[in-house]
């Protein structure tokens, strides 16, 4: 191809093209010196939100630490698609130990670095991130995560939330939203899909630990995500960033709609995007143009059972009520 049109303003996305900005104002992803912490060639599905989220977050953390970063990774899609030996996408020191112990492994890395630094104060300082999927974070890794939070260990933990155990074939996790179909909450029976009144929202639990920094983000807002990672790296102690990462395979969405799905989650109020310090909300990203939850639900096959010949208005209303509650609770219409 000899000519590629450049879109400066992508209509409907609210995204200003980076090329309009001065180089120093560009996002890390758009800058010429971005680290490419996760190299191309990995085996994620087309349009994988987790691959995108990890690249955004880790590149931003690399930028913030001038490349002095070590990552611990839980078992899950990110670990599997980025590695099988002898190939690895990771351009940074990286360790995978188990599914449920990533926060603790990171604690160990941080402890070792603290002693190394003490013994050699002139050495450049190295920081630690831990990362895992929602299953590895909210379920099996929860004990280790809570321990790391409570001790205020110097670790940034990043959860890539795609709402289920995707690596094992899309089973329900405690982050799977109500009504969503997964392989273990099938769209059958009188109440198809995942049950209402269950599950947990880990950012709120992280806040209850009163750790220095908690934030949520989505892959739809690159600048916001990068700013939060940068902010997190300015702080010492336990930090937590929970990133919504749509999964085309598990959600049943088109691979070119990943960003759109993440944006719809935010614009409907389904997923609140905010920042908290020491257990108190400091800011929330305002909804720019509020949309009904149907707009978010309808394109996803995991909610297809809600939109048959007879849309299941009762369940859709319940989901709208959850979004409305988020909007009230996090003041998403006014923004903070």
């Amino acid at each position, binding site marked *: 191809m000899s000519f590629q049109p450049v879109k400066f303003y992508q209509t409907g996305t609210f995204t200003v093209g980076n090329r309009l900005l001065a180089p120093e104002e560009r996002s890390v992803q758009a800058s010429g010196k971005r680290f490419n912490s996760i190299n191309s060639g990995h085996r994620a599905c087309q349009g994988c939100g987790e691959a995108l989220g990890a690249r955004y977050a880790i590149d931003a953390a690399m930028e913030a630490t001038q490349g002095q970063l070590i990552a611990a990774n839980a078992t899950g899609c990110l670990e599997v698609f980025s590695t*099988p030996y002898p190939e690895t996408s990771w351009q940074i*020191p*990286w360790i995978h130990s188990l599914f449920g112990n990533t926060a603790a492994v990171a604690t160990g890395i941080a402890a070792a670095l603290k002693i190394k630094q003490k013994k050699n104060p002139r050495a450049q300082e190295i920081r630690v991130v831990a990362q895992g999927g929602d299953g590895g974070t909210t379920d099996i890794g929860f*004990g280790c995560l809570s321990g790391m939070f409570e001790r205020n260990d110097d670790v940034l933990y990043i959860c890539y939330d795609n709402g289920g155990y995707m690596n094992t074939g899309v089973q329900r996790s405690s982050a799977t939203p109500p009504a969503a179909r997964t392989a273990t909450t099938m769209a059958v029976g009188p109440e198809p899909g995942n049950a209402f009144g269950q599950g947990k929202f880990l950012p709120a639990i992280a806040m209850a630990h009163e750790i220095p920094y908690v934030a949520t983000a989505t892959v739809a807002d690159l600048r916001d995500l990068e700013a939060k990672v940068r902010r997190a790296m300015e702080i010492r102690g336990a930090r937590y960033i929970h990133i919504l990462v749509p999964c085309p395979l598990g959600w049943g969405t088109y691979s070119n709609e990943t960003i759109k799905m993440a944006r719809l989650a935010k614009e409907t109020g389904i997923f609140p995007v905010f920042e908290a310090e020491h257990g108190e909300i400091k800011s929330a990203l305002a909804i720019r143009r509020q949309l009904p939850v149907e707009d978010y639900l309808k394109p996803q096959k995991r909610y297809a059972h809600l939109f048959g010949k007879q849309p299941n208005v009762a369940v859709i209303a319940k989901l709208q009520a959850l979004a409305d509650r988020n909007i009230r609770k996090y003041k998403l219409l006014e923004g903070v």
Partner: protein
Amino acid sequence: MLKQCEGSHAVAEAVALCRPEVICAYPISPQTHIVEGLGEMVKDETLADCEFINVESEFAAMSVAIGSSATGARTYTATASQGLLFMAEAVFNASGLGLPIVMTVANRAIGAPINIWNDHSDSLSMRDCGWLQLFAETNQEALDLHIQAFKLAEEISLPVMVCMDGFILTHAYERVDMPMQAQVDAFLPAYEPRQVLDPAEPVSIGAMVGPEAFMEVRYLAHARQVQALERIPQLAAEFKEIFGRDSGGLIRPYRCEDADTIVIAMGSVLGTLKDTVDEMREAGHKIGVLGIISFRPFPLVAVAAALKDCKRFVVLEKSLAVGIGGIVATNVRMAVTSMGLKGYTVIAGLGGRAITMKSLTAMLDKAGRDELDLVTFLDLDWKAVNKQIEREKTHRKTGPVAEALLRDAGIVGARNY
């Protein structure tokens, strides 16, 4: 320096002399005094340049250890019993990653029924986890083995468990010779990892490996343990040169030269066995004792050599492979496969049951006449067992077994079913 102290404190001091950089700990009896001692030393700064982390579980303890060891820090933890099982997944992971963590196991029974007293079920349940396992006979040896363990682990890039009998050793006050810092420094060089997480040279550690290379990776873990069979006696010799005492090695024979019967065991019961054998020797029995210090790697050749002139062996073990008999015995049998020896398995001391010289003498006397059953449970209360078996034949709802046995034994408060 000679001093009188508790086994746990002796171990804590020895570990501190090894200059660990990260210690993580979760309490479980009878391991507690060891990590309490170390925690205090870190806090009052007698142990400098060391991070002591109070973790939220044993699974976290081993996971923190994995992270710190992979970052190049000399790392130590301790556990026992339920704690070892709770960390099991990470225990296998640490050895699979080739991380030279040193861990004390204050050997204790495994429930249910929950029981805090000593036997070897915990570490032996982890026999195939890829860690080396060294068993201490005395508090002095426990102390010495920790110093050797760090050196061994770091040389061969594999983790090492130092196993010491819970309460019997950990809580016993005995005289020990505490080494000087300079001696330990002369013996134990700084840790130089084979792989380390470092931004200057990024590596990916712990990624997935398919069928193309998995067998080879596992074989190399085995080969490294086999290599340790050579290194362990050399280390004991090097240790003796600096510290002046015999400690460690693969096996320790006692009065085996002309013995017809050799009784094999691990840990503190070796003391009782030696006394028993001394008495039986005086009464004219040709009997000796073989202590196994290195259970993993298992010294097949050394055990075979030690048994080559006897007529029979008795393995006395504080563990039970339910459904077959002995764990140590199975390993010993492999060592003597083609030697045509009579072999007996004696399960003893489970859950802290006392092992007395009187019972040992009677049992070994029977063994000497080849009248012992192939698998014997020393001092088992057959009356209580048979009564329960009978009850289970005639009643369906017999309730918890342990309670029924205690009720039969006349322990008040036990419920009737």
